[in-house]
């Protein structure tokens, strides 16, 4: 019966003539603006901060992977379609519009270029030559050249083949190539200007409409054509060459040619994008979508520092991981699902086991071979593969035992053993003639006796009966390291090493986090790495165990399989995707849902590395190929401090570092760039001098209102792992000055000033007091003087003499005279104590005085008072001042028939009164005490700001006193 059963394993092989396998990069449409899904893109550029600038149908957009900022020109009402965008060598972003407008971005926003000339048609491209000269091509208005200040036009009149231009390139000899609707125009620099150079190959061009010109690293110029694909100009041989793959081109206009290292990418109008690996003489590969997503009309292709590929399409923005992360979901039309095991053989053949099948292909191409492993009539899941030293493939199945496959003939032989015939072989490894098996029923040791170069070798099988160190049941994995030690991953007994006939067991007691081990690998330093369910991975250098978990940045703790690959990386697979640990830096990259890697559910033996270093991962959804060589520098998210805004100021303050005490409210805007998976960036910030710890945030903005004066350092860092084990930090230090009144120098100077001011005030007060004193004295003196003058004997003597004369003539007049004299003295007594009296009162007194004097001098003395009634009631004067002036006039002048004295009192300009008299020089001048006049002047100094004016000439003396 048994014999018959064995014979049922009729094993055969099918060689299928199917097309070679193909790996497809993942293409994803990136939605920039959720409110406008129809946004089309004409071009894109990446700036020095790694930020993307997009020329869209709605104008210029700045995009960091998650958020966009729209830039609009202030002048235009409706958004103008941006048709070109370019970052120059100084980091300035330039954009061109459908209207012909050219603009550039500065700290304060988008500014349009103002020049004497303005392009009349849309800007089709922007280019900078090695001299820093910017070239703008237009669709119908020739080329515009910008050399720092002015735009210069270069069109058909100057020798351009056609005014419709698409592109500019500069070759290694400094010639400028311009692609037009009528072929190429070459320009050479001619002193300050440019002139058309002779060109002999335009006739050789297969098409005259030149859509793109791009220089490759050898200096040859590649020419993208409207209808004939691509050709190139070989600089050394001075001729046009058409690549084989471009002959009979049927894919429409070539809108963009882009070289990324050794890759050539072509964007076309009707057929998506084309890819060519320049190192291999392979053929052109066309990509026009991924899964349900399709695209065409690729207008611009660029790559970012993470080696992602970005494409501007008329129907949207597209991101791809290019060829460092590709997928193989089908072979021909046959879908590949549920790949349990992937294995690369010594001849670089990849074996994979999609859903109960087994197939292989060579990574260099060629046909795909299908093998069938059956146990009786039913197919079995294949879960482990191993190639022995003779090139035979050992095939471990799930519940169907162990087989050995001659991969050339396809002959399959069951390796028969009562313990193995319906066993589940989870893992196979070996070296030389020894092969080790890990099964659900314990571990086995196989020894090939005699030659292995036969379909039916003699294999001796021993079950390892080591209850204590391995357990008797589930062994998940077996791994033979570079020193020929055999490592077992067990279910409940941890990690076990078999070397020199002895078992060494390591469990949680030695520092493991889990006693179950799923997968084992070895790095180039000989350290053993292994993965666990639920406890991450662990590194064992022979002495200590170093665990990696969530804190170290792992995304998932149940790691089904791990493998050490080139560039010191450990690739780990789990159901959420792939974690990649950079063993030298400790950084962990994760690729998941954003990268088309969600719910991939890989198996235990799902990772293999081919001879070129590519990592092949079998998943539930097909094969994932990760190529570390093409992804050499995935420097984690870099954080850019995009704006430092002082609240109340519109401008970016990044260049400023010192602020006044009231410039103390800040807004920091920052952006982490990780286009590979932008939503997963974590941020932490700290304002040194204010915060003492890092603060986690998912916002890209922090506000610090009202900071006290001091020294600050704003630090922000971004990381893909929440633990920030490896992160880039950007900082901005600044200083807020203390308010002036808190500065020491200010306080000192204020004190000094107060002291000085005090001294001055005290001195002034002294002075003023002395002045008042003096004035009082003056006043007293004045009054005394007036009194003295009024009662001076001359006055009385004269008055009495006059009275005697009158009494004799007219008694009535004499009485009136005495009455006036009496009035005079009464008035004087009445008013002299006052500061000021009404002008009318003073004039009354003057009139009385004049009456008295008139009796003495008769017609020889004349007083003319010419003052308005209004003035008499509105003005005030010091008492006796006018009288004193008239008295002075009489005193100092001769009054006689020959020399009559006329005194005029009239209103001067402004609010003042002038007393004017003619000068009659006396033969014996009266001795002047000077007290009277000086006294008036002094009094006015305290009573009024106006001054007393004195003027005289040979004939007249006049004095003007202001009214108070």
């Amino acid at each position, binding site marked *: 019966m048994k014999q018959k059963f064995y014979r049922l394993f009729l094993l055969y092989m099918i060689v299928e003539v199917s097309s070679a396998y193909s790996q497809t990069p993942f293409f994803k449409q990136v939605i920039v603006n959720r409110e406008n899904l129809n946004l089309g893109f004409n071009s894109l550029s990446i700036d020095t901060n790694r930020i993307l600038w997009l020329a869209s149908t709605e104008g210029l957009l700045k995009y960091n992977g998650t958020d966009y900022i729209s830039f609009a020109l202030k002048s235009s009402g409706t958004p103008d379609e941006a048709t070109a965008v370019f970052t120059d060598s100084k980091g300035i972003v330039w954009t061109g519009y459908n209207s012909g407008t050219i603009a550039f971005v500065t700290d304060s926003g988008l500014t349009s270029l103002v020049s004497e000339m303005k392009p009349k048609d849309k800007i089709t491209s922007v280019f900078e030559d090695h001299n820093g000269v910017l070239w703008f091509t237009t*669709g119908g208005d020739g080329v515009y050249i910008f050399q720092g200040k002015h735009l210069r036009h270069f069109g058909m009149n100057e020798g351009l083949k056609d005014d*419709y231009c698409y592109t500019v390139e500069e070759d290694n000899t400094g010639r400028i190539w311009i692609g037009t*609707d*009528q072929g190429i125009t070459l320009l050479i620099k001619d002193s300050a200007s440019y002139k058309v150079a002779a060109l002999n190959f335009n006739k050789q061009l297969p098409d*005259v*409409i030149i859509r793109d010109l791009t220089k490759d690293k050898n200096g040859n110029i590649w020419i993208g054509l*409207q*209808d004939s694909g691509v050709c190139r100009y070989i600089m050394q041989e001075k001729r046009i060459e058409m690549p084989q793959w471009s002959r009979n081109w049927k894919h429409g206009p070539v809108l963009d040619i882009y070289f990324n290292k050794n890759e050539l990418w072509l964007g076309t109008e009707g057929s998506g994008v084309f890819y060519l690996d320049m190192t291999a003489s392979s053929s052109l590969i066309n990509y026009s979508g991924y899964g349900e997503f399709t695209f065409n009309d690729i207008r611009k292709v660029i790559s970012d520092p993470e080696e992602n590929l970005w494409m501007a399409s008329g129907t949207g923005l597209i991101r791809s991981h290019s060829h460092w992360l590709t997928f193989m979901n089908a072979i021909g039309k046959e879908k590949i699902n549920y790949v349990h095991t992937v294995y690369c053989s010594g001849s670089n053949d990849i074996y994979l086991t999609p859903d109960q099948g087994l197939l292989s292909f060579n990574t260099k191409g060629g046909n795909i071979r299908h093998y069938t492993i059956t146990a009786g009539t039913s197919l079995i899941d294949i879960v482990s593969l191993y190639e022995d030293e003779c090139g035979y493939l050992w095939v471990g199945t799930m519940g169907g035992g162990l087989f050995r496959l001659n991969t050339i003939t396809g002959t399959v032989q069951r390796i028969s053993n009562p313990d193995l015939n319906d066993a589940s072989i989870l893992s196979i490894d070996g070296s030389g003639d020894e092969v080790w098996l890990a099964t659900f029923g314990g571990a086995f040791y196989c020894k090939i006796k005699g030659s292995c170069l036969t379909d039916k070798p003699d294999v001796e099988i021993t079950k390892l009966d080591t209850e204590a160190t391995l357990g008797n049941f589930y062994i998940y994995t077996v791994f033979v390291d570079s020193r020929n030690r055999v490592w077992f991953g067990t279910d409940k007994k941890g990690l076990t090493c078999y070397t020199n006939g002895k078992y060494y067991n390591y469990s949680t007691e030695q520092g493991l986090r889990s006693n179950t081990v799923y997968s084992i690998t070895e790095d180039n330093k000989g350290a053993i790495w292994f993965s666990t369910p639920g406890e991450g991975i662990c590194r064992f250098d022979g002495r200590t165990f170093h665990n990696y978990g969530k804190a170290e940045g792992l995304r998932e703790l149940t790691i089904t399989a791990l493998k050490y690959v080139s560039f010191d990386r450990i690739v780990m697979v789990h159901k959420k995707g792939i974690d990649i640990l950079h063993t030298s830096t400790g950084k962990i990259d994760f690729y998941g849902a954003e990268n088309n890697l969600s719910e991939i559910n890989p198996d235990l033996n799902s990772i293999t590395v081919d001879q070129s270093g590519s990592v092949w991962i079998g998943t539930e959804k097909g094969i994932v190929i990760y190529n570390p060589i093409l992804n050499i520098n995935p420097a984690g998210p870099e954080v850019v401090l995009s704006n430092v805004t002082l609240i109340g100021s519109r401008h970016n303050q990044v260049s400023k570092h010192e602020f006044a005490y009231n410039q103390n409210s800040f807004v920091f805007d920052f952006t982490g760039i990780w286009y590979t998976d932008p939503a997963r960036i974590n941020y932490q910030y700290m304002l040194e001098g204010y915060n003492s710890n890092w603060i986690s945030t998912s916002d890209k903005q922090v506000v610090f209102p009202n900071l006290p004066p001091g020294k600050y350092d704003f630090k922000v860092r971004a990381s893909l792992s929440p633990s920030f084990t490896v992160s880039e930090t950007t900082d901005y230090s600044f200083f807020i000055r203390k308010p002036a009144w808190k500065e020491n120098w200010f306080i000192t100077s204020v004190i000094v000033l107060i002291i000085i001011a005090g001294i001055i005030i005290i001195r002034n007060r002294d002075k003023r007091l002395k002045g008042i004193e003096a004035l009082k004295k003056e006043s007293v003196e004045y009054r005394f003087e007036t009194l003295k003058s009024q009662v001076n004997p001359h006055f009385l003597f004269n008055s009495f003499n006059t009275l005697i004369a009158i009494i004799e003539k007219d008694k009535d007049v004499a009485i009136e005279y005495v009455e006036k004299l009496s009035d005079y003295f009464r008035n004087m007594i009445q008013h002299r104590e006052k500061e000021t009296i009404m002008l009318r009162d003073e004039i009354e007194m003057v009139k009385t005085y004049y009456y008295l004097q008139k009796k003495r001098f008769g017609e020889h003395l004349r007083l003319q008072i010419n003052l308005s009634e209004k003035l008499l009631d509105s003005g005030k004067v010091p008492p006796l001042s006018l009288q004193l002036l008239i008295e002075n006039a009489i005193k100092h002048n001769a009054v006689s028939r020959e020399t009559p004295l006329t005194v005029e009192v009239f209103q001067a300009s402004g609010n003042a009164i002038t007393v004017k008299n003619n000068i009659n020089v006396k033969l014996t001048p009266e001795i002047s005490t000077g007290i009277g006049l000086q006294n008036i002047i002094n009094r006015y100094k305290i009573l009024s700001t106006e001054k007393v004016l004195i003027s005289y000439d040979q004939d007249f003396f006049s004095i003007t006193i202001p009214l108070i």
Partner: protein
Amino acid sequence: MKLFLVTIIACLAIIFPGSESNLFYVTTSSVKFRSEAPLEVISAESSRMQGVIDQEKRTFVFTVLNSSFQGFNNSLQRVHFNENYMESDIYPLTSFKGKIIEEVDFNVPGVYQVRAKGLLTVHGIVKERIIRAQLTTGKDGVELESNFTVSLKDHNIRVPKVVHEKIASEIKIEIKAALKKK
């Protein structure tokens, strides 16, 4: 409408000054369009295309009145064409003006395959197009033939979902014209 055509011809004269002997004018023409949708095929034709080619500058203008198309499946269709889709009262004209890329010697009889690059205005939306055409030059003048498609979406012509199956998204255009010097 006549006034309109007169205006256009006047415009053409302004656009194309210079010696008359350089200009070829359309004498007879046929513009056909064809919409091949799963449920219905619609076609119509106009013989009233106007146009001129400047043989020296290799520039051209062609224009046709939307209301001049005839031959719909029924008269209601024609009304829909003019009122609902082309909005002929707002955008009465369809035009194409531009430049011929290839060199053509109009004095030598022969057949030339050319690309005409210019601005195609349909439904008021201007699109830059490169359209292939065949020019046959003879002693009497030039014969022009061209087949191309116009996308409804490109020209913002909205088709209600109900009639989606009846109107193709890409309309095929076939043009034949004879041009002569005046």
